[in-house]
């Protein structure tokens, strides 16, 4: 899985950190540290984070299942 956060857009609302605490951490007042390559097993948590972000700053791409185009 590949994740990128548009950190211009991110306002450090930390909703992603509640949704997927293993993969998104807020440090200092507003530094978002995130895992850009979470394991496939985290799919549901990452999707929750994407949905929870109030400014739609998180983009994710899942690996295509083997054999798919």
């Amino acid at each position, binding site marked *: 899985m*590949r*994740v*990128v956060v*548009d*950190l*211009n857009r*991110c*306002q*450090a609302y930390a909703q992603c950190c509640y949704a997927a605490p293993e993969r998104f951490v807020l*440090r*200092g*007042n*507003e*530094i978002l*540290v995130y*895992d*850009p*390559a979470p394991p496939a097993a985290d799919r549901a948590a990452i999707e929750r984070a994407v949905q929870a972000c109030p400014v739609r700053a998180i*983009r*994710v*791409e*899942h*690996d*295509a299942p083997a054999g798919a185009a």
Partner: protein
Amino acid sequence: MRDGTIVVAGASLAALRGAEALRARGFSGRLVLVGDEPHRPYDRPPLSKHVLTGEIAPEATTLPGVGALRAEWRLGAPVTGLDRAGRALLVGGGERLPFDRLLIATGARARPWPVPDEAALAGVHTVRSRDDAAALAAGLAARPERVLILGAGFIGCEVASSIRALGLPVTVADPAPSPLAGPLGPVIGGFVAGRMEAAGIDLRVGTEVAHLEGAAGRVRGARLTDGGTIAADLVVVALGAVRNTEWLAGSGLDADEGGLSCDGACRALDEAGRPDDAIFAAGDVARCPHPLFGGRPVALEHWGNAVAQAAHAARAMIDGPEAAGRYAEVPAFWSSQFGLTIKSLGLTEGADAVAVVQGHPRTGRFLAVYGREGHTVAAVSVDAGRWLPAYEAPIREGAPFPPIVGGADQPSVRPVPSGLPALQPA
């Protein structure tokens, strides 16, 4: 244009986002991305931050979007030339890749230390690519006795912060009077200097390095122009960027180390200033006129610009330059260092005044606005990103400076000189 062949030179952020935008706008022809790095497009901002602290692996930075894009990838393939009349890109060992439209997104590279023998010493690093960051991380894992960073711009400061977080002794040297002096001036620069020193950085402003010194092929330290020396067994050269335009030599396009000139629709300009209807540019390599800058050309080095400009170029490529209009995205970037998040909107270049309008450096959270000739041109927040969006409209409109007075915590806003150099006449 909906079919035919579009070739993208470069395969990083602007290339990927431009290619995605071409597909999203209905381009169904052949799409080829040619990049000299062996990697699929990856994200550079983490390289000076959490990759150096070891929290993110260099190879974890591959960007979302690479999997779904319908395109041919030519990776590890340097573009060596452009046959403009023949509408073909020259790749690697002389192969011709014909195109109907070309998007140039070859970005920039780290400006090397100017003395080649010294730059080649073992232990001297720059940070631009994933491989650079991996090599630097490996050098740091050997626990050098002191790291010297040349240049206190954004990358120099971020690298200093990351390396200091590893507990290593760090010296930062820059000829300017404060860190970040070039982009932000001494008001915010002075605040960051305090944070750097509090973090234990040996900050040497007003300090110019004349030579790097080595023994047995390894760097040992630096000699200063004032005769002093700094001992260091690892050096990071962070002296800004050079645009990757050498391969355009002889093409007749107006390009140099400062960028490839474009018009507002991102069409490349020839040496007579005429746009080429088939060739476009976006990202760090592109030098486009910006309305916030009185129409002067400006080459930005911002992640958000690479994304937005690539989308703009794609629109002009598919729907035509008139439909796309002039590129006018308000420049924006972020940086994180020493526990702080610095965010900027607008262009500070040529600002003659700056005023803290919200918060206060004393409290560690504030927002400063920059003015030029009485107009608001930029705003920079330090740990106050949520205040920033309110300044986008005043910047876009060039509202009177300062745009907001009498904020609850700011009974009297006092502008001071920005300390930034004046603009050259257009």
